[in-house]
């Protein structure tokens, strides 16, 4: 027990760290596009609110817009949108992927 648990801790940590998420930094990334073509975060918020979302917070992450909020279905999620098209790319709830657009 004295050595077993620390050893198990190291082993699990070493397995968990590289394999836990399929993605290393941020959930997904968007191919770089010139900022001049980006729609504003306010436009995204307006679009989402119209669709029934509640937006808590939004920011740029991995070249995409990342939004924290509640879906029209009432799920608390973290979602990614394309900054140019404002298309929905990825929706996850605390590590559980609810939606992922093909190719992302």
């Amino acid at each position, binding site marked *: 027990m004295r*050595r077993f648990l620390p050893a198990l*801790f190291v082993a699990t*940590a070493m397995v968990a760290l590289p394999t*836990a998420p399929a993605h290393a930094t941020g959930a997904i990334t968007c191919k770089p596009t010139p900022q001049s073509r980006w729609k504003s975060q306010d436009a995204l918020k307006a679009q989402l609110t119209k669709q029934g979302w509640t937006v808590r917070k939004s920011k740029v992450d991995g070249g995409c817009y990342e939004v924290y909020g509640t879906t029209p279905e009432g799920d608390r999620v973290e979602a990614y949108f394309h900054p140019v098209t404002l298309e929905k790319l990825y929706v996850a709830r*605390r590590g559980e992927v609810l939606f992922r657009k093909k190719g992302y």
Partner: protein
Amino acid sequence: MRTISNNQYLLGLILAIPALGLGLGYWQGQIDSMDLIQQTGEWSARLMILAMLLSPLVAAIGRRKWLTFLLFHRRWIGVAAFGYAVLHLCFYLIDMGNLDDILAEWLAPGIWTGWAAMVLMLPLALTSNDLAMRWLKAGWKRVQRLVYPSAVLVLLHWVWVHNSITAAFLHFLPLVILTLIRVLKPWMSPLKP
């Protein structure tokens, strides 16, 4: 030594500084509950890592005065880690605001790991006092070893909820390395030329 050990209240105060800062920020409306969930969670993990780091660090670099001091008051660090975990949970509950939303996501990978880590921390915190130490005798150490499975859950919770391994990795790496050194030490023969 006495003067150092008398500084335990100073240590308690130091451990409370992040909480005071975060509380002030929340009070002034500079930080919202969503950010506080992350901040309090990270402080909890940092202190848990610090508490776990001390004895492998002693094993690796030998006794130092400051290490002896921290080791002597390790329970304070552990209890502080639990305290930040409680704050973390409180702000999570405040942020979610209703039971339905909490139950809807509680089986999500990033969430059940957090709950489970918290459950494992509870007996650690409850037994972090002289009375429990006397009462449990040798069993006390065994109870405190629950920190290892709890730490694994904290790591998974962090990685999954954050969708990123970078921050969690950087925090846990020193602990993993030092623990690895300690675990391997008996096999690293000192008799080698």
